[in-house]
């Protein structure tokens, strides 16, 4: 009992600190929506007046809508690829019982230890060598790589949380590997699959460092924003666009987070 009392001592001050930390974390980001409604080219105090003009400039801009469509298509394809790889790599890592599967899983998490600029240039050399060149397919390959560690970690922890006995029961009752995987393990981890897909979509959608090297003539949304940052006049438009992107990102990330923990209650009680 005394240990608990000791540990709790000073919790109030720490709570205040955590609050201040959250303010530090969110305040700079929230300035973007704040100034996107401000009736001035300058992002500065005092606020001039409320306007929706910057949001109106987003409409009927072919370069912007082209970049948006590009980002959406690349995001969906890359997220599908990264999720597929995440599922298979982590499943085989846990149940494949082969050194090759373990090696693949270890290498799949390696991009965390490589700065983005190096991932970008090594892929640039590769896609030029095989003749793809900077293109949308190259960006998809790059984003699969960037999102891979996340999907592997999400899927691996989910598969590991499913009691071993469930898979063994399916195999004992005569289900083949395919059936066990497709009819038992995959449905049990469906929320995590969706979560991995959404998170890797977000990673691809927001990714800038790698895409900078791999983009051809058709830019993605972050590249479009980067190109607009050179012009001070277009900064309010960038802030309006940024506000939309932040809102969508928050919603997708929030949903993904809820999905990741859903239905884990039963599995938690008996973790593998």
């Amino acid at each position, binding site marked *: 009992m005394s*240990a608990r009392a*000791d*540990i*709790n001592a000073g919790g109030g001050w720490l*709570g205040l*600190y*955590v609050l201040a*930390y*959250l303010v530090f*974390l*969110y305040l*700079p*980001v929230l*300035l*973007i929506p704040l100034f996107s409604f401000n009736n001035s080219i*300058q*992002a*500065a*105090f005092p606020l001039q007046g409320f306007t929706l003009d910057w949001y109106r400039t987003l409409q009927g801009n072919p370069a912007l809508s082209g970049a948006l469509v590009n980002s959406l298509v690349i995001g969906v394809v890359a997220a599908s*690829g990264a999720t597929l*790889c995440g599922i*298979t790599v982590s*499943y*085989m890592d846990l149940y494949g*019982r*082969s050194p090759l599967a373990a090696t*693949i899983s270890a*290498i799949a998490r*390696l*991009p*965390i*230890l*490589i*700065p*983005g*600029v*190096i991932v970008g*240039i090594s*892929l640039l*050399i*590769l896609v030029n*060598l095989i003749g793809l060149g900077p293109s949308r397919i190259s960006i998809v390959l790059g984003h*699969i790589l960037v999102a*891979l560690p996340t999907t592997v970690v999400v899927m691996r922890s989910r598969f590991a949380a499913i009691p071993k006995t469930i898979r063994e029961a399916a*195999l004992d009752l005569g289900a083949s*590997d395919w059936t066990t995987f497709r009819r038992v393990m995959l449905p049990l981890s469906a929320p995590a699959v969706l979560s991995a897909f959404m*998170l890797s979509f977000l990673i691809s959608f927001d*990714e*800038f*460092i790698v895409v900078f090297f791999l983009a051809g003539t058709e830019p993605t949304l972050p590249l479009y*924003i980067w190109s607009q*940052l050179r012009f001070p006049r277009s*900064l309010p438009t*960038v802030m309006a666009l940024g506000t939309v992107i*932040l809102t969508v*990102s928050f919603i*997708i*990330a929030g949903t*993904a*987070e809820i999905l990741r923990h859903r239905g884990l209650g039963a599995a938690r009680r008996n973790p593998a």
Partner: protein
Amino acid sequence: MSTVVAARPLPENRISPVFRFAMLLPGGLVTFFLILFALGLLVFLAFRGNDGSLLGVGLTVENFVTVATDPLYWTVTLRSLVIAGLVTLATVVTAYPVAYYLAFHAGRRRNLLLFLVTLPFWTSYLLRVFAWKIVLAYNGVLNSAFIETGLWKEPTLAFLNTPAAVVVTLAHAYAPFAILPIYVALDTIPKSLLEAASDLGARPFTSFRRIVLPNSMPGVLAAALVVFVPTVGDYVTPAMVGGPASTMIGTLIQSQFGKANDWPFGAALSVCVMLVILCVVLVARGADRRFGSRT
């Protein structure tokens, strides 16, 4: 019936070759082709001369000689290490109390707080850096706010285009990375250890210093690594808020593949960066072992 079941080999041993191949194929292609082969190409290119062609010519160590002898690269590398080191120190030190609160005090609010802390991680890195640009700019948020409140008479240029701006911006951008590993390490410390220390008369600070801190070191090292690696190679933040005095090694690599157009030399610089990171990883590994890793 039961004899048939009993005669069947154990489930683990009968994975069909077709299933194994199909399941290993996507991950195998990505890891061996996109990661290992691409990195191999990079290393190969680093030992080639630049003749404007894709893979260069000859076999040479000239690129590495230039990196080693030109003081410019030593300066920039050193600056990158100092900036990344400061960012790592700042993020880990500020994240530790948050992780501590999450592990020991958060109670029912824990999941909500964890969610709030990780949420910025999923928002655009470019927008987070851009936010700092408008905060630190000459006619920006910070300057104008200080003038509004009467603290300053006129705007100051002291914020933007300094290495300090790079450190603050990067520390903010990578802050969410540091909390989770430390939190996991703190959360897995057996509570009985703390109770034992308290029962044996240790004061709160003593039990923190002798039990909590050493036991959380693997998490601290993991956090330091995931912050250090992306920061040391960053080129976006120096370009946005750093100015010419904060050129980092990532900036130089990027320009070799852009304006300077010397791919083999850029590849050699990248290999050097990876070697530096490898050294840091090995040092972290060694430190981890000293603290008796539980991972």
